[in-house]
């Protein structure tokens, strides 16, 4: 039906470069991020073992949070190509630009790798099975059997592989998509679609093992086969929430994409956000109910830490991360009316941080327990015990905020840089005509 449709908008590429409007933020964000991270690192490394443990956990929380946004963006690029989605031609470039942050996230993993390589078991206890064994005799046997997989060298190699895959895939798609801005060659679209299919299993496997390595191995004796999907569901959901916010901002009256991203696009982005709120809830609940029902100590231990020991958080997480946005995003008016998606987009982004916090931070309870049992002096043991008891309240404090602001600002600097230098719209995408005339059924 597109033969009678025409594009009335001006699609010259230079119109869609934000330039200084985004560029002036780069140095500001980078500065804030560098200062916040520097303070966090100094505080984290000078405050004793318990503080180091807390810093590393807080860093990992924020790191996994912002990495998940990049991964969500990458998946968006892949899935839109593989489904030949017409509607997303106007928004896909935003996702492509956000994946430019993946190399940045690879660099940001260095503090985590450093802790692993320096034999610091305050984050990943599997780094040193002996401290585990001194605290809970016999437990290190379980970890030693996993040593072929969970060891610093292989851990680093795997991390490098994941990032090589992601950066490679993301760059390939972006390169082709941007080449199309110049040539308008529709065969590029066909090529991208063809490559998008094998990119999906590649992405699925890498994000699964990434989440197992970075989050599940925090408790090396615990396992959940649905864990990778859990992280993926959250990742794609949080990216859609961010895309909802960005498209509302960029597509608003006077925005650079005004007229290109309309209510119809808000609606579709909102639907995908809603779907992945549901999907996250479904996966999170599936994991929980099986463990709850079976009630096997080796599985429940993980939830025990989060629900009974100090953190009455499982139900709260379900309510905040699932129930509220589920009810809130149900209506189509919530998704379509310009600006409204910002409310729940922001909410979901905040709750995804809470989710990462929930996955990461309680593992300190174990780390501190091991450190306490291995403390050189009784005084040190007492200090560690006191630190463990401070978890009775939700430990969201200065270190967590500094890490969030630090990594977040650097992430924003990366996004601002990408937006300032590149066209923000895939101007000569062959599906642009279809996209601009897009209506929801």
């Amino acid at each position: 039906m597109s033969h009678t449709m025409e594009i009335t908008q001006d699609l010259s590429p230079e119109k869609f470069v934000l330039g200084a409007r985004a560029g002036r933020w780069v140095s500001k964000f980078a500065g804030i991020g560098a200062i916040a991270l520097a303070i966090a690192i100094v505080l984290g490394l000078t405050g004793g073992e318990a503080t180091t443990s807390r810093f590393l956990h807080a860093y990992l929380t924020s790191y996994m949070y912002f990495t998940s946004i990049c991964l969500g963006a990458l998946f968006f690029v892949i899935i839109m190509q593989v489904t030949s989605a017409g509607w997303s031609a106007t928004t896909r470039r935003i996702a492509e630009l956000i994946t430019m942050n993946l190399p940045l996230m690879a660099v940001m993993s260095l503090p985590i790798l450093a802790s692993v390589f320096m034999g610091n078991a305050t984050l990943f206890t599997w780094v040193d099975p002996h401290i585990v064994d001194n605290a809970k005799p016999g437990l290190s046997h379980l970890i030693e059997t996993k040593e072929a997989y969970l060891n610093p060298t292989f851990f680093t190699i795997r991390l490098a592989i994941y990032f090589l895959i992601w950066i490679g895939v993301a760059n390939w798609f972006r390169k082709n998509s941007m080449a199309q801005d110049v040539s308008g060659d529709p065969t590029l679209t066909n090529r991208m679609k063809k490559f998008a299919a094998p990119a999906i299993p590649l992405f699925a496997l890498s994000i699964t093992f990434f989440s197992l390595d970075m989050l599940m191995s925090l408790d090396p004796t615990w396992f959940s086969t649905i864990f990778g999907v859990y992280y993926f569901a959250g990742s794609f959901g949080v990216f859609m929430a961010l895309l909802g916010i960005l498209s509302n901002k960029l597509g608003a009256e006077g925005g650079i994409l005004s007229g290109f991203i309309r209510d119809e696009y808000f609606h579709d982005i909102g639907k995908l956000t809603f779907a992945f709120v549901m999907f996250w809830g479904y996966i999170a609940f599936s994991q929980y109910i099986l463990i709850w029902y079976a009630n096997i100590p080796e599985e429940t231990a993980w939830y025990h830490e989060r629900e009974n020991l100090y953190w009455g958080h499982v139900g709260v997480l379900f309510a905040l991360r699932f129930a509220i946005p589920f009810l809130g995003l149900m209506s189509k008016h919530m998704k379509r009316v310009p600006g409204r998606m910002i409310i729940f987009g922001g909410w979901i982004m905040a709750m995804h941080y809470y989710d990462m916090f929930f996955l990461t931070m309680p593992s300190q309870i174990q780390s501190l327990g091991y450190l306490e049992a291995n403390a050189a002096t009784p005084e040190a043991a007492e200090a560690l015990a006191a630190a463990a008891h401070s978890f009775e309240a939700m430990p969201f404090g200065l270190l967590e905020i500094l890490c969030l602001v630090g990594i977040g600002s650097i992430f924003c600097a990366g996004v601002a840089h990408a937006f300032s230098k590149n066209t923000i719209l895939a101007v000569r995408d062959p599906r642009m005509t279809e996209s601009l005339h897009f209506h929801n059924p």
Partner: protein
Amino acid sequence: MDNNQNDLPHLGLLAEYETPEALMAAAEKVRDGGYKRWDTHTPFPVHGIDEAMGIKNTILPWIVLGAGAAGTVTALVLQYWTNAVAYPFLISGKPLFSWVPAFPVTFELTVLFAGVTTLFAMLGLNRLPRLHNPLFNVKRFARATQDRFFLAIDSQDPLFNDSSAKALLAGTGASAVEEVPDDNSATTPPMWMLQAFVAFAFLTFIPIGIIVGSWKSTSDKPAWHFVWDMDFQESYRTGEQVPLFENGMAMRAPVEGTIATGELFASSSYFRGVLDDETLDKAQADRSASEYVEFAPIAATRPTLERGQERFAIYCAPCHGDSGYGDGIVAERATSLIATGGANGWVPPTNVTTPVIASQPDGQLFDSITNGIRNMPGYGKQISVDDRWAIVLYLRALQRGANATIDDVPQSERGGL
């Protein structure tokens, strides 16, 4: 549609278009013309047609939301009431009602209620099923399911004016505008359909009637077998002859040396406190003291006696009392009830420190504990063999204490008395 108030020879106008874009443009014009009773017909859903036609948002989502919420509430109340109120049954230590296992059923009922309501509310709001439409009388309308797009204005529309409506449609780029001929077909369903419906409705009562009829009636006929492979399983039964095994028996003999529960014959004196098991075949009153083991077959060490004391306090003291005088709390309670006319038939527990009991051999005490005596039940199932012997040894200590003389107290301790 059959009462034509405008006295026109037709029911309305039907315009045909070749593309959805042309239809959309026409729909916008008709919408802006202020018409209310008109519709479009397309072979596939055309995105944006709702807006072009000026159709208001349907209330269907609210109906579905209400039905979904009703499903949620129904599921939660149903599960709470059945599990925690009507038939509370503790399963593997789980709470009687918990949100976690309740969730899947709640989800299912929410979806079921919402889904079924969506279907029927949609049908109802669209006044479906509708078996006949006068538009079917226009021949070219058949292509509405193939490759043509139609717009029909009903002549009953308050704004309808034959010539102006025709002019409007002609100006929308329609490839054809045609009058919809008056429809003389029946407005009621054919008779056979009604009859079939009534017959079907009656038939549905038959299974319900059978269930109600057999609900409380009894029958001496054998039960119906609905699930044959469950009622008559492909397995051998006890005592059957089978070709599988050398001895032709379906049942396998136990492995040599197998000891079934309660059939341990290893040592009469240790396990049963008698010298010969035949003693146990006689009534307790007919046995002589010499038939029992005289001394407990375990060593009377301090830990053993302490163990005996502890077990005695748990199993025996409630009736026999801490010192064995027969004054445990159960006995005291029974005595106080007898004073007010209760606890009929109560036999007071024996004072186990009397010379009569003290003169019994160890094996006899062991047998009394194991199998009970008179009103006292046997404790062989609750207390292990060694513990029973430990109790016997502790009993000896109690008897010794109850019948002690000053000579039993060491010279050095007598001053403390």
